[in-house]
């Protein structure tokens, strides 16, 4: 009986450590007299030492997606490769479960999240984020034949929405007090509308441009009202010096226009933010 109790406590303790891992980390690193101190304090040194920058992504055109050879491409992927090159390391893309992105970062199984990530309060409070590099908006998606009726915010109140859980879209509909169901991904939200299980969805405008309307997967859907304006950023571990390294890199590549060129390749040049 005692053993079981001890075990339960150990497990609980382990979980509480996960919870306050961030706070403890700074104490621990400053207190440790380890020989590889530099790599513990500096993420840049850590990444350089192992020779790879592990980039956590999801399959998300036009930011990160695979070409016919299975190579990761996209505006984010290409920029990430260039950034890794500037550090003198290899870029390694790893598909992750979006829900686990912070665990992946803190557990060092990835080094950054670079995947058209909207800089929400939740994101900026749990990761160290780069400067915004791309504009985005949360926009309402409805079936094309009903689009006329829903051209302003006031008309939305009788619709049932599908939004990605924890996304900027969810934040918007809940502040507006709209009825909604949280689903696993933005694409799932689109499917809900296409399947008729929800009346409307709220997703990123960049994604909507690629996936909704004539010549896309969802020809019967269209976008109407924009609910806000927001920005994309890259997320790192808290306190990471990779942030300033990336900000410098962004500034340099905006100055020499390589960033804009890259954006043109994927049709998002209009959204790029001046660095």
């Amino acid at each position: 009986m005692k053993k079981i109790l001890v075990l339960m406590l150990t497990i609980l303790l382990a979980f509480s450590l996960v919870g306050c891992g961030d706070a403890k980390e700074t104490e621990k690193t400053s207190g440790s007299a380890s020989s590889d101190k530099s790599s513990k304090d500096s993420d840049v040194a850590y990444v350089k030492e192992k020779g790879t920058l592990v980039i956590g992504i999801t399959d998300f055109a036009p930011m990160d997606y695979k070409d016919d050879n299975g190579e990761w491409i996209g505006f984010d992927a290409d920029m990430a490769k260039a950034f890794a090159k500037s550090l003198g390391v290899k870029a390694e893309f790893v598909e992750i479960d979006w829900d686990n992105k912070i665990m992946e970062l803190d557990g060092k199984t990835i080094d950054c999240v670079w995947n058209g990530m909207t800089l929400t309060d939740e994101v900026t409070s749990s990761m160290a984020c780069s400067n915004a590099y791309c504009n985005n908006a949360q926009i309402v998606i409805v079936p094309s034949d009903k689009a006329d009726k829903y051209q302003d915010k006031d008309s939305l109140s009788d619709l049932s929405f599908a939004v990605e859980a924890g996304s900027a879209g969810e934040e918007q509909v809940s502040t507006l007090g709209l009825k909604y169901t949280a689903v696993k991904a933005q694409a799932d939200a689109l499917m809900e509308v296409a399947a008729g299980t929800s009346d409307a969805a709220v997703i990123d405008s960049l994604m909507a441009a690629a996936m909704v309307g004539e010549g896309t997967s969802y020809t019967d859907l269209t976008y109407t009202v924009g609910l806000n304006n927001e920005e994309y950023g890259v997320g790192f571990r808290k306190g990471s010096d990779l942030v300033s390294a990336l900000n410098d890199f962004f500034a340099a590549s905006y100055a020499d226009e390589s960033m804009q060129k890259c954006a043109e390749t994927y049709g998002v040049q209009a959204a790029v933010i001046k660095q």
Partner: protein
Amino acid sequence: MEQILEQLPIVLKALNVGFLQTLKLFFVTLIGAFPLGLLIAFGSMSHFKPLSYFTKMIVWIIRGTPLMIQLLIIYYFPGLVLHNPIWGGGETGRFVAASVSFILNYACYFSEIYRGGIQGVPVGQEEAGLVLGMTKGQIFVKITLLQMIKRIVPPMSNEIITLVKDTSLARIIALQEIIWAGQAFMKGSQGISGAIWPLFFTAIYYLICNGILTILLGRLEKKLDYFK
């Protein structure tokens, strides 16, 4: 329909890659869990009390908690709490972590089946072996083992077929098995999005795989039918 035919090669290619991962995890789990389960079974039947209590407790914990939690803990715990990401972030690391979780989990389930199988062999069989001057090892290999196998084939078959389907849980740590591959086309991948039909195809892969397994295990069961 035409569109589906056009997209079919892309989808099947992705599903094949995913299914290979599923099969790899399936076989690695079996290869690891068969012997480990037997060890755990012997541990829990040991006359040395601390050992048997310890193994029984492990089995209780593993069987009493969802495999999904075990996957999350085994993969993320080393990096998050011990600050030592032993698995690494790449595909190999995720596969190894998933394999460890699955082997541990399934070994515990197998151990209980083994235990039932061994204890189900009448005690008289061992005694008959003893009075004929056999060693404990000879008794296990020559007498108990086959009778145990005969007893465990039906419950083992259930577990094995469950395992095929359980491999899909590994996508919680982003192991890209077949459901992940199928779902990618729902979320949008390689120009295909909002497509639910690839998921039907993943179901067909599972059905074929389990169909073959059912036939093979049925044959084994029949083969062991020669004695009672």
